[in-house]
Structures are given as C-alpha cells and as structure tokens.
C-alpha cells in the first residue's frame, strides 16, 4: 500500500473515533502547550532582565556585601560601610572610578495624612541618579552632598507616589511624608519616566542613604554600592582596584574568600542567562515527563484500538495486506495522533503565553514582551511526533503479527 492510501486509512481510523482520538492526544497537547509556555515565558523573562541590566549602562558595576552564594540566599550581610566608600573613592586607590553611590533598601509604606502607598523606598545619592539615569527632578530640587552628610530628612518622589498620597494634581513639594513614623520633607518630584532597569521611577521614594541607614534601618551598613567607571573600557580595571581596596580595608588575607562581590554588567548578563537557562531547562524536563505520560496514554489506547479492530486487521490480511502494511497503518495513526496533538498544543501554548505576557505587561512589568519560541515549537512538534513513533510501535507490532484466521474469528 502506498503512503497516500496508508495515510488516508490511518486518518479514517482516527476520524471514526473523533472524541476518543481527541482525548487520547490531550496529554500530548498539554505537554507541548506547557513546553511552549515555559520556553516563551523563560525567554520573555530573560529579555526583560537583560533590558534592565543594560539600562544600568555598560560602564557600571555593583558591589554587594557577602559572597556570591550569600546573596542568592537573600541575606543582607553587614560588610559594606562608610569606611569602604571612603577607601574606594580615594583616587589613589581606584583611579578609574568616576562615581560611587551607596544604596540602602527600605521596606515599608509611605504615609501622608490618611493616605498610604507601598512605594519603592531607596536610600542613595541624588548625584548618581542624575548622572546614571539622566534623572533631574521635574519640580523642586535634588538633595545635595551636604544634605547627605548631614543625614537630612529630605526625599525625592516619583509622580505615582505623589498622585497616590496627594491626589491627582496634588502638590507634594514642601510637604512632610512619613516613612516608618519618620518624617521626611519632599524637596523634589521626578518626571514621569516609568521603568528604569530594576525599578520604576514613578513608584520610588529616594532619600539620602545616610538618612535611610540611620533613621529607617538603624544601622550604618549599605546594601550595595553602585560604581561607575570613567569609560566602558576601564570597568575591568576599576573592578580589580575596588576588589583590592576592599580586601585591604576588610583585612582579608590572600587565599581567603571575599566577604563582598563585585558584579559588572557583563557578569550580570552572564548570570541572568545562566539562571534563566537552568530554570527553563528544569521546567522543560518536568514538562517532558508529562509527554512520556502522554505517550503511555497513547500506547494504552492504541493497544485497546488494536484489540477492538482485530477483525478489521484479519480482514485486511485476508485481502492481501502484509505485516508491513498493517504496521505502517497503525504506526501512522499513532504518529498522526501525537503530531496533531503537538500542533494543537503549540497553538494553545502560544495563545496562553501571549495572554500571560499581556497580563504580565499590565501588572508586573510594562516592558514584558511576548516571545514566540520558534525552537520550542519545532522541538515540540518533533518530540510529539517521536512520542507517537516510540509509543505506537508496540501496538502496531501487536496488530501486524495477528494471524488472519484468529483475527477473523474474533468476535
């Protein structure tokens, strides 16, 4: 029997039991849809994070306290202090450094009278925002170095914070807002800017890092120090000097592990790619299990189908079908079933990923983009067809080896 007629026969076999065929391949559909979903969201997340990282600028680097491992456990060790800042800003220590800005992260709400808002509260320097993000206050002023040194109770806020606390069109300038029962005077309002790298300017409250550390955290540790090199080319040299300086101030002996880590943008990109890659691979492996389960389902139903159609098989053999004819017919049925399931799965997965991307863009990160994972679609299709081949071969062999008399006698 030629391929055209084998295909037609196989399709006939499947369409004779439409709802069963559909249910049988449901496992494959869900499996492939999940692959598309995982890969699409993984690639979307990667693109988003890489966007954020590149918004930092190629000449930047960040010092974080603790070893790299500590960081991933969400610990906030206490190794970065004012003394470190002084050491690395000394030109003789780090000649390539253009700017160093400590950061202190604060969790809490901003309150004005009866209004509360869960803003992103950061302690930092105004200079760094201005130079790194080209971000001047639209109204009012930025706080000065003197105010930082004096631990002044002043704040710069984003438009969203202003709208939430003072109502649409309200004016926050000069008013006192509370963070953690500590009063801060609003001296500047940022222009509407949206997401910038890892944070959304509009939702941010920026206070001097010294004030944040003293009043809001009650410690004098920094959560990070942002660095900017004079040129992109000097970043590596700057990082080397910073590491040497900090090892010196922290009295770390040669061979001992650093109690801090310095990340460059290139390093971050590498890390993000690695983490997202590992996560995606892990999730894909989990999903792959569902494909195997789906395949077993296919095998099961194909075996039932072969038994049910014993008589048909016997008839075909009596009329001249060879073992090969029967084998190909049932194998093609299985492959058609799973491949069709794969295609439907790709479509469902794509639609779901698109909807979730829309949802994420709306709620979490407006820069989230939908990514159609071409490679996942191709792999999904090929894998689903392969599942049909692998799990269809046993039932097809069972069908092919039926003896025509046994088969014809079967009631």
């Amino acid at each position, binding site marked *: 029997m030629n391929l055209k007629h084998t295909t037609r026969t196989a399709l006939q076999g499947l369409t004779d039991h439409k709802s069963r065929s559909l249910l049988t391949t449901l496992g494959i559909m869900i499996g492939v849809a999940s692959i598309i979903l995982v890969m699409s969201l993984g690639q979307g997340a990667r693109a988003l994070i890489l966007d954020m990282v590149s918004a930092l600028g190629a000449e930047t680097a960040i010092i974080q306290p603790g070893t790299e491992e500590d960081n991933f456990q969400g610990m906030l060790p206490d190794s970065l202090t004012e003394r470190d800042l002084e050491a690395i800003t000394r030109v003789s220590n780090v000649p390539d450094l253009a700017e160093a800005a400590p950061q202190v992260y604060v969790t809490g709400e901003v309150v004005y009278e009866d209004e509360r808002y869960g803003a992103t509260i950061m302690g930092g320097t105004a200079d760094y925002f201005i130079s790194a993000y080209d971000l001047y206050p639209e109204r009012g002023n930025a706080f000065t170095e003197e105010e930082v040194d004096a631990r002044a109770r002043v704040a710069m806020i984003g438009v969203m914070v202003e709208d939430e606390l003072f109502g649409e069109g309200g004016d926050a300038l000069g008013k006192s807002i509370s963070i953690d029962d500590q009063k801060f005077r609003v001296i500047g309002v940022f222009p509407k800017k949206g997401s910038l790298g890892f944070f959304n300017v509009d939702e941010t409250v920026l206070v001097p890092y010294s004030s944040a550390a003293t009043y809001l955290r009650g410690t004098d540790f920094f959560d990070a120090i942002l660095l900017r090199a004079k040129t992109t080319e000097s970043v590596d040299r700057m990082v080397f000097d910073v590491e040497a300086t900090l090892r010196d101030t922290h009295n770390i002996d040669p061979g001992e592990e650093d109690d801090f880590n310095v990340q460059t943008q290139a390093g971050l990109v590498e890390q993000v790619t690695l983490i997202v890659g590992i996560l995606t691979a892990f999730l894909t492996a989990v999903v792959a299990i569902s494909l195997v389960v789906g395949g077993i389902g296919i095998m099961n139903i194909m075996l039932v189908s072969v038994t049910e159609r014993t008589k048909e098989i016997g008839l075909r053999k*009596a*009329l*001249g079908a060879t073992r090969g004819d029967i084998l190909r017919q049932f194998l093609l049925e299985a492959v058609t079933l799973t491949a069709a399931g794969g295609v439907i799965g790709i479509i469902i997965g794509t639609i779901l990923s698109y909807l979730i991307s829309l949802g994420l863009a709306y709620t979490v990160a407006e820069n989230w983009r939908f990514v159609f994972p071409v490679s996942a679609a191709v792999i999904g299709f090929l894998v689903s067809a392969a599942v049909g081949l692998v799990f269809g071969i046993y039932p097809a062999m069972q069908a092919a080896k039926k003896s025509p*008399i046994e088969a014809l006698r079967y009631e």
Partner: protein
Amino acid sequence: MALFDVRDLEKTYPGADGGTQVLHGLSFTIERGEFVSIMGPSGSGKSTLLHILGFLDESTGGEYRFNDRRYQDHDEDEIARVRNQEMGFVFQAFNLLPKASVYENVALPLMYSIVPESDWRPRIERVIELVGLSHRTNFETYKLSGGEKQRVAIARALVVEPDVIFADEPTGNLDSKSGQAVMETLQRLHDEFGHTIVLITHETATAEHAERILFIRDGKLESDTKVANRRLATDAFKK
C-alpha cells in the same frame, strides 16, 4: 494441471497429548471454472480446510498445491500477495468496514495490490454493477441490508479478478430471500463469467447450488458427488 491439488492433507492443532487432529488425510482436486461446495456438519473440519485452501493457515501433513504453489515455499509477503491477487474471500459475517462507502470497501483489496490506481475506478464500478449495487455506490455500508452487504463483499472479492472465490457460509447471516439473492449472484458469476467458486456450507439446500459437493465428516472426505438436480437461485425468485 488442477487449480487445487490436495493430497493426504492433514492438520493437527498443537496442544496437550499430541494436539488435536482436525483433518485426517483429505485428497481431491478442483479444476479451474468449477463451482464446488464443501459441505459438512459443524466440527467436521470444513472451516479448517477453507483456511488451508485460502492460504490463511498451513497444513501439517500431506500436500496442497494452489496454482502449482505450496504455502510452505513462500514467505509471508508472497503469501499475502497470492491471497490478494489470486483469491477472493466472502465471509459469513460480511466483514465490511462499516463507516466506509461501498466504493471504498470494494477498493480495499486494490490498495494492497499492484494494480495501477488509474485502473481502479472502472474495475470497481464494473464489479459493483455486476452485483447490482450501482445505486448504492456511495452509501456507507452500515446503512445497507444484510443481503446488500454480502453482495458488496462479493464485489470486493471480485475486484482483483482472482482465480477463485471462497465463500464461507455466505448466507449464514441472511434471511432466506437475501440468501437467495446472494446465491443467485454467485451462480451468475460462475455460469455467465466462468469464475471458480468454492462454497463452504453446512446446509444441503445451499450446497446444491454448486455443481459438485465434497462432503466432509470428521476430517475425512466422505463423498465427492456431482449434483444431479442443481438448484437455481433464480427459480426461487420466480416462486
């Protein structure tokens, strides 16, 4: 050379105590163009004999040649080819594909044959007309009456222009009127077109539509007789 040459044919199904012997040394020949009934009570071994004659099963003793070929001399694919091109089968239970049309059912053996696809349509239409079902060509077969189904099966057996048509209790599932119509079709194929037909039945009345009856009992050939007063299915219609 006879179309069927059967000598001392034996068949033993494997099992405990040396198995079960069903055929105990049958010998006969059937010439091309004959219409022969193989008759016997149930359990006489006639179905087993049909399976061996139809190359669906292998004998365990004696010798059987069809068109001067033995089952044992060929591999499975060649046996399938012989069944496809030289033999046509009509079964008691019709064994049609219920959701396929009359046309598609009749086309089935051609799919496994080497007949070029361009020849299919004229062949299929000719045999459907021969069994008088042209007006049903595109009907799905589950919608047909029992008699019509059996005539579709006959058309399917004919379409490859085989050397012999095996009809295994073809009227067994039919009422007497439909059965007569089927027998009339078989008789016409033989009388008008010269087809060789081997009919298996346990009913004397049905067997007497043939020209010759081989009577089997307990796996042995009890008698081999010419039918003196051959029944004609067309007569039954006239009554």
